């Protein structure tokens, strides 16, 4: 007798599991993290409690969580719209950087412009910057069938080093005591903030983007085409839906939203372009989008959760001397468990005794 484990295909994918798996993935990731914490001699209960209270337990923590949720939300929405069409845009990080660069360029070029002019101009520049950056892998994919995963990922490094080149070189603030960053923007180029907190208007961008995306996908011809291609590219081709045009347009929208995230970071938080404007928001956005099952509203919620994880991770570093990488490990573990759990949505496990 031996116990055998077998996967049986479900007749219809389980709806309940579609919801439960993301939840369980988080729980399992926390358990996994607990083992690591215990191994380095920390009490996981205390650490998680500190993380939670650090992220959500004080006014400062809470507003910081909202601040970090903004870029996650925008780039998460961007990533999700591409993923909906089975376009694996891994380049949100680079698109965010180029968006920040383009917005900063506008802000620095027109220091005298009033806010009503400069803010929309920076938004446009940020969106277009990200959109154009994403159009490179899109065009290569549409015209030459080049794998967009590789090209969009590689372009991240190009974008990051381009920004570094600028802030160390031609754009460096001459009065910055050698600090790698541009001169601060004019006050007109700063996004309005909520009271005395660091929460800025970018939050509204994120919420409006989620609303728009929801409407595009559900109510428009374009959204219908995106969904058809995502569900069944063969049927889309059969129906005369142009894959080339949609690849170009969806990637532009995807990159544009990430670019807007970059714009909102430089305009809302840093007020200059500098090195390390993103601690990897564009990568975390992939996990956010996937955990949210590519649903725009769920992305908004999950962005706050992951922002809390980042803020809580920072707290650990400060108060317990744990490396901030702890939160990266947890993020990775969450994605790992989700991807592993996907198989259960379409299959069931049967355990049987066999001779």
């Amino acid at each position, binding site marked *: 007798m031996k116990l055998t484990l077998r996967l049986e295909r479900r*007749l*219809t994918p389980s709806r309940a599991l579609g919801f439960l798996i993301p939840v369980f993935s988080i729980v399992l990731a926390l358990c996994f993290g607990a083992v690591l914490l215990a191994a380095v001699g920390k009490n996981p209960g205390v650490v998680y409690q500190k993380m939670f209270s650090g992220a959500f337990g004080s006014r400062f923590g809470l507003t910081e969580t909202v601040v970090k949720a903004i870029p996650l939300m925008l780039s998460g929405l961007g990533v999700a719209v591409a993923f909906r069409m089975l376009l694996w845009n891994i380049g949100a990080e680079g698109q965010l950087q180029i968006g920040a660069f383009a917005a900063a360029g506008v802000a620095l070029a027109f220091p005298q412009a009033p806010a009503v002019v400069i803010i929309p101009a920076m938004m446009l520049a940020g969106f277009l910057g990200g959109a154009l950056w994403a159009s490179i892998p899109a065009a290569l994919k549409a015209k030459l069938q080049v794998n967009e995963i590789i090209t969009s990922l590689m372009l991240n490094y190009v974008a990051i080093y381009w920004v570094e080149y600028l802030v160390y070189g031609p754009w460096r603030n001459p009065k910055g005591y050698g600090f790698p960053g541009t001169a601060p923007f004019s006050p007109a180029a700063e996004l309005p903030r909520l009271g005395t907190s660091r929460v800025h208007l970018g939050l509204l961008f994120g919420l409006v983007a989620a609303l728009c995306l929801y409407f595009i996908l559900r*109510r*428009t*011809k*374009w959204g*219908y*085409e995106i*969904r*058809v291609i995502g*569900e*069944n590219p*063969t*049927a889309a*081709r*059969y*129906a*005369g*839906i*142009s894959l080339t045009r949609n690849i170009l347009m969806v990637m532009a929208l995807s990159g544009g939203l990430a670019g807007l995230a970059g714009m909102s970071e430089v305009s809302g938080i840093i007020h200059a372009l500098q090195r390390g404007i993103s601690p990897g928001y564009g990568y975390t956005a992939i996990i956010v989008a996937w955990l949210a099952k590519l649903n725009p509203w769920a992305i908004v919620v999950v962005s706050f959760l992951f922002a809390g994880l980042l803020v809580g991770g920072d707290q650990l570093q400060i108060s317990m001397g744990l490396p901030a990488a702890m939160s990266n490990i947890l993020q990775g573990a969450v994605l790992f468990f989700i991807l592993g759990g996907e198989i259960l949505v379409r299959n069931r496990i049967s355990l*049987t005794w*066999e*001779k």
Partner: protein
Amino acid sequence: MTPHDEPPRNPIAPTAAIPCATGRDQTVQFLEMKGITKRFPGVLANDHVDFQVRSGEIHALLGENGAGKTTLMRILYGLYQPDEGKIAINGKAVTIRSPREATALGISMVHQHFMLVPPLTVAENVILGLKSTREPWLNLGEAQERIAELGRCYGLRVDPRARVWQLSVGEQQRVEIIKALYRRAELLILDEPTAVLTPQEVQEFFTILRQMARQGQAIIFISHKLHEVTALSDRVTVLRDGQVVGTMLTSATDRQRLAQMMVGREISFQRYKDPVNKGEVALELQGVWAQGDKGLPALKGVSLTVSQGEILGLAGVAGNGQRELAEVIAGLRPATQGKVVVGQKDVTNRSPAEIIAQGMSYVPEERMRVGTIVDFSVAENAILETHGQAPLARGWFLDYQAIGRYAEKLIADFDVKTPSQDTPVRHLSGGNVQKLILARELSRSPRLLVAAQPTRGLDVGATEYIQKRLVEQRSKGTAILLISEDLDEVLALSDRVAVMYEGQVVGVMPTSEASVEELGLLMAGVKKQLPA
């Protein structure tokens, strides 16, 4: 623990020679399934089914799609567990939990799609997955001898040293049967085995099956072709809605009665023919070449014309370029040479959207993979090609009310049975999916309709309905290219018949001048009609 006390026999071939005659007692009940019930969410797939097969008999299992044939056979083959009921083999109760256990009990299944490895030889394919008698070495020589011997016993002539890719489809099917016999199968399940054969090959295949039965082999023959069932089987069991309608001697019944039992009402075998009223040429192919999926030429200079108001039936054995031809016309596969003209306009290698705009409609062969999006609702599937047009869309937005009315009309006009227009297509039966596709494609009032295998796998009722609508559409003046592997269908519906063989049209003739024998020879590539 299994209830049967005898350990399952090892399916792995021992070395002993196989006698031709098995010496099985042919009056013995080999298989008995009793009270088999299987429920799926919302469906009672098998409802207390009783089914017996004797050694040495060919037992046909007949039923519409969704009648429960497949479920019953999957239970027998160990792929599903029944919720209720008992299975006995040779009088002993058994539990079959996997295909491996089924094989050990002497049950083998030949699938519609062959499970062979083309670059390997016949012998290598046959011993694949079996333990060798001289591990770690292969016992190829021994296997070759046994294969030759099985071939002699049953008339299954195949060279054990030939590579599978070199074999014809009919020969490959023989290899599948040899594989089963090599594993000492006593009961063979054949799932729609004749779909891939020419009429001549079918005759030869039936001879082999009869020979096998004479030597004690039990055979379950699953088919929806009534004339094959009546020609071949000893007994028939008819399933409808998961229940057994009846089991009877084939000699004591006829096609008409079987069809009635299957469908639960009378079926007319009357054909609907009114004289052709040919209009303008809607489709013209001039020397079209195209590559297949493997990069080899699949079309080698195809020339054809189809006029408005006529059905051109394109017959041929599966895999002779019919699918590629349909795809080239629809703009889904590039033509490497030649010209495709739809309604006076050269559309060679144009986008599908442009060809659709020229009045081309296409009912694709794979309705669930190409023709629909299975997780989309009926309504969302109804607007696949026309979602950009008024009144379904206004500006950038879809008008869901108009879409709802439109879907409702298609559902009513084509008698699509669905709980609602919001039901995902995944939950519809094959016949209703096909009605939905046909409704959608005909709603554009096309100049040309390319219908690829439009009734394959459908039940009698749906087949009849689809065929009737095709003929109606032809009388309304649409040009129809009917691609079908079902020769009866081609002969019944077409005004002219063309035959494809190895990427070429080897003959075109008016249906009135075509005979099954001649078409069979053309399909087999034995004969080639000289260009008139």
